[in-house]
Structure formats: C-alpha cells, structure tokens
C-alpha cells in the first residue's frame, strides 16, 4: 500500500530572496515580460490595499483579499491566451486584471453592483464564483465546448485548498479526465480555509496528488514565484492544446490576510505564523531578482507605485461616482424576455418607488 505517497514534482525558479534556484523558462529571459509580471503583482496589491480601505470605511462590501497570493492568479492568467477562458474563484483579482477586467469593474463587483461582472473584456470569462468549488464543472463545460468545436482554446479554473474537499471539484477533475478536455485547474493553496488549516482539510500529502485519482497529471509549484506559476501553467496549457487533457496544479502560497474583511484570523491563527511567511511573499523576490539583474531601481519602483496608485485611485473614484442601478434593473436580467407576472411585479415596484 503506497497510495498516500504519490510522487509529485514541485517547481520553483526564484527563491524568496530572488535567487535563481530552478530552470529559467524561455519567457523569463525577456525582461519586458518580467517587468509586466512585476507590474501586475504591484497593481494587484495596490488594488487590494485600496479595496480593504474602502471596505473599512463603509464604501465597499465584504471583500476577499488576495494579499500574499497575487502570484497564483497573475501567473496562471499570464500563461493564458486572450481567447482562453478564465473561470476564477473569489481571490483572483490579479488574474482578472491581467485578462483585461478593469479596476473599476472589480470595485463595482465588490461594491455590490452586478455591472462589475459585465466585463468590457474578456467577454467570455466567468464572473467571480463565491460558492466554493462549484465553478469547477463550468470549466469542464467550457473546455468541452472548445474540444467539440475543435478550437485550440483552453479553460483555466482557480479554486482554493478548501475547494479540493468538495465533490464538485472531485467530479470536475474526474469528468475532465474522462473527456480529456483542455482545462487547467489551479489550486490556490494558501494554507487556510477560513479557520481550517491545510492539515485539517485533507490527509493527502499534497493536494496535487488528487489528480492521480482522476487519471490526470498533478504538479506542485511555489505559488509565491510568479515565474514558476506561469511556467507550470503554460506547460499544462500546451498539453491541453495538444489534446492531451487536463492538469491539476497546486500553487503553494500563504494567506497573509484574513479570509475576508468580515473575518478576524487572530481568533484561530498565530500572528507569529503570519510573520514567518511574510519573507516568502511574491513581490519582493521578483523585485530583488530584477534589481540584481539591473532591470530595476528605486526610482523605477517609486514611479511604478505612483502609476498603480493613481490608476487605482482613479478607478475607485469612478466606482464611487457610479450611481446604483435603477430599481428596474433587478427585474431586467432575470430572463431574456420578461414573463407577464414578473412584469407586473416590476410595474408595481417601480410605481411604489416613484410614489415614495
């Protein structure tokens, strides 16, 4: 009996200090690409900081931060082609931004406005999924659609470590394996599912090994190393496009934030543990690497921070200046054609609103 000891490859390119410890993928030899990745990480964190601040001051709804985990979604999205479809969970702001979702749309969504899901681009990407893991079968359906149409596109689905305990994810991996659909499933293993630590989530030695039960490849990657995440996802996507089927990628990272702005992680997690993980966070290692390679300096850093900050501030202002949708909007998108009884409810509600 050795089922619990499935060998899983783990990939890391940069260590936490930014030193090269693994094979540099082809794309990472291009500084322009690395600078773009770094900018995406910084933009994501700037957005995140602002979103938390807006929530704390009553100007945004409950918000799920991606602090410390930015490299997972950014790396996965950066590996994708624009025509692929992203099927995210609720912590993938960085990936959504990379794909072309705007900062204002993200603010609108977290501010409680459905228009935030009406992405100006990418039009086919799925919106944020809140019920944990329930979006994994959607990615299988999207990927199946690509396979049936003979398109060289793929779906990339991200979910957390907690989601791997759900039947939806097990079912989705299994179906994806049977049908060999072009899908990549990325686990944002941030060590905590609200108050449940990784070891209470599953007795599996790795989460990537859950792929074995579905008959598909599984791999671990340092989720704080954006180069490695992108490289491993690219490899999985290449397989998918060749018709070789899905892959499960476990990106190992750490949730430096509370679960959401409604959570207080100090109730169940030692601050000391969080402090221990800070040095491994994803931004500093790439910055160190870029600095040591002569591509980055203090002035450039300040300019980037300023640029990201103004973009985020501008988007926040645009969001705050957007009036809520009219009452009629809650009725207008329930069906393609409004049924008579719903029309009557809409009319009554609109009249009451007008009279008030």
């Amino acid at each position, binding site marked *: 009996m050795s089922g619990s000891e499935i060998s899983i490859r783990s990939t890391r390119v940069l260590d936490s200090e930014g030193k090269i410890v693994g094979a540099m993928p082809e794309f990472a030899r291009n500084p322009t690409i690395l600078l773009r990745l770094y900018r995406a990480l910084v933009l994501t964190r700037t957005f995140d900081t602002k979103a938390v601040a807006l929530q704390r001051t009553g100007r945004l709804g409950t918000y799920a931060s991606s602090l410390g985990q930015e490299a997972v979604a950014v790396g996965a999205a950066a590996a994708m082609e624009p025509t692929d479809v992203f099927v995210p969970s609720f912590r993938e702001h960085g990936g959504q931004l990379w794909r072309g979702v705007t900062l204002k749309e993200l603010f609108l969504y977290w501010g409680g406005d459905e228009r935030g899901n009406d992405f100006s681009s990418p039009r086919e990407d799925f919106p944020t999924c809140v019920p944990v893991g*329930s979006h994994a079968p959607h990615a299988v359906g999207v990927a199946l659609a690509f396979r049936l149409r003979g398109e060289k596109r793929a779906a990339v689905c991200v979910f957390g470590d907690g989601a791997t305990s759900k039947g939806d994810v097990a079912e989705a991996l299994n179906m994806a394996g049977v049908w060999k659909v072009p899908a990549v499933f990325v686990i944002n293993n941030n060590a905590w599912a609200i108050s449940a630590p990784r070891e209470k989530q599953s007795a599996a030695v790795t989460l990537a090994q859950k792929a074995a039960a579905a008959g598909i490849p599984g791999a671990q990657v340092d989720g704080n190393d954006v180069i490695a995440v992108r490289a491993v996802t690219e490899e999985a996507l290449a397989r998918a496009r060749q018709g070789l089927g899905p892959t499960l990628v476990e990106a190992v990272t750490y949730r430096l934030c509370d679960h959401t702005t409604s959570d207080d992680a100090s109730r169940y997690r030692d601050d000391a543990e969080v402090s221990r993980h800070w040095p491994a966070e994803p931004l500093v290692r790439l910055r160190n690497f870029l600095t040591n390679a002569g591509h980055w300096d203090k002035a450039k850093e300040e300019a980037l921070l300023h640029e990201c900050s103004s973009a985020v501030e501008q988007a926040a202002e645009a969001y705050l200046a957007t009036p809520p949708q009219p009452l009629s909007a809650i009725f207008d998108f329930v069906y393609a054609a409004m049924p008579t009884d719903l029309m009557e409810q809409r009319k009554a509600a609109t009249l009451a609103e007008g009279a008030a």
Partner: protein
Amino acid sequence: MTELSLVQAVNAALKRAMDEDSRVLVLGEDVGIDGGVFRATDGLFNSFGEQRVLDTPLAEASIAGVSIGLAAQGFRPVAEIQFTGFAYACIDQIINHASRLRSRTRGRLTCPMVLRAPAGGGIKAVEHHSESPEAMFAHIPGIKVVIPSSPARAYGLLLSAVRDPDPVVFLEPTRLYRAAREDVADDGTGMPLERCFTLRPGHDLTIVAWGAMIREALEAADQLAKENIEAEVIDVATLKPLDSATILASVARTGRLVIVHEAPMTCGYGAEIAARVAGGAITSLLAPIERVTGYDTMMPYLRTEAYYMPNVPRILAAVRRTMAYA
C-alpha cells in the same frame, strides 16, 4: 401524424431539436448507446454520434455544472437526470449558477440549457424514484419549470424548452411515459411556454392540475359530467412562469376551484395558485379553494404508494364539498 407515447414524443422532440440546431447536445448517464434508462434518447447516439450525445460519468451535480459551461459557450445542452430524486444533487448548480448567470453578468453570459428528469410516482419504483419536486424548482427565480401531460404537449413544450434562451427544468411524468399514445405531428412546431392549456371546458367548477394528475382530473370530470356537473380542466403545463390569466378567467366564470397535485400539500405549487386566485378572483369565489394533493409525508414505498397518490375518489370528494358549499 404518428401515434407516439409520451417518452417517444420526448425522443422525437430531441431528435428534431438536434436536427434543426447543431448547438443542441444531449448529455447524461446512459443516454448514449443505451438510449437512457427510459429510452428517451434511444437512437440519438446512432444518429448524431458521440460528439453530440455524451455519456457522462455518474455525477449529477456536474452534469448540471458542465451544462452551464457548455451553455455559456453557446451550446444548447439538454441534460438528463435519471430520476428527480437524484436531481437534488443539481440544485446547487441550478440555484447558484444556471438560474442567475444572465442576471449576475447583466446579460453577458447566458444559460440556455434544459434539465430533463422523469418525475412523480405511481410506477412502483424503488425509493427516491417517485419524487415531485416541482415547487422547489418553481421557487427559483430565473428558471422555467415545465411539466407535460400528454405526448403532443411533451413534444411541443420540449421543443420550446430547448429553443428557450434561459434554463428550463423539464419534468416528465414517469407514469405517463408509456400510458397512452396519441397522434403527434413531428413537424417542429413548439408550444408556448407560460401558457396553461384548457383541456376541457366547463362552467360549474375549475380543476387545475399538471403532469400525471391530469389523467385523474379528466377522469373525474368525465364522471361529474354524468351528474350534469361540468368541470373545466386546466393543465398548468408551465409552472414557472405561471399563466395566471387563464386560471383567473376560468375561476371568474366558475366560482369554484379544486387544485390537484401529487407533491405534498404544504408549500406545494397549489398554494401559489390558491394565493393568486385569492388575490385576483376572490369576489368570484363561491366556495373555499380545495386542494387534493399528496400528504405531508415521505413518498411511501411501492406497496403503499396508492395510499399517498391523489385519485379520482379524492378529487370527486373535494368537488362535492366545493359544489355543496353555499
């Protein structure tokens, strides 16, 4: 015109829908070479191949979930769940995703899918195979709930369900699958959703039912006619969205209403109809609204299921109470 049973009419509608629109796919457990446990998809695999008739692993939630992904990508998936007792596993996908994909993306992504499942009792099946969950589905905003009661309506309504731009839960009365045959013109004509069908005109009282209970309702009406009581029988057919107007107009004429359904009484769909009639035709009512339904019990096992099922004597008793009320 061909004489078809209800399950053959479902099959004919699926074949027609797949013929006319290459985006239509059929998926589910055993729907391929086996043709489905009730043979509703019989022959489709041979006609359309494995690219359009997909046998799935045994995973109901994901049959619904995968359909959502396909629908968002422009396909028109028709998913089969073998029995409604297993469709409960799909409810998370239906409520949290299929029903609201259009609304939460403000129309950017839509979910034109059909979830088909045999429903209802009276077939002496093993437990969990005789459920009537229509009210649970009808409570969900954003979906449509359709239950045919004859081969012709199964054909026409299923075609419309497949062509509909929104998700439809299509519950097929298992008891009627092979109960009767009728002429069905396989000419691709859909029947309107959001429309009740008046199956028998009458001026003394209104009997409202759907699905398999239409048989008992019509039989009761036949017996009443011998006593010179003319019952109007309305097949609701599409529970959501409801065609209140047809029911209200009928009650306005008859003043008496008996609602028949197989599902348990409390929070059953009859309560919704009663509330609408109370709200829209109270001054026409000459007697309290009667409900003849399954009891608020578990669906019994097959040896005692007849105790549970509404039947003609129970309908007649309710009608007599209604007619005697002054």
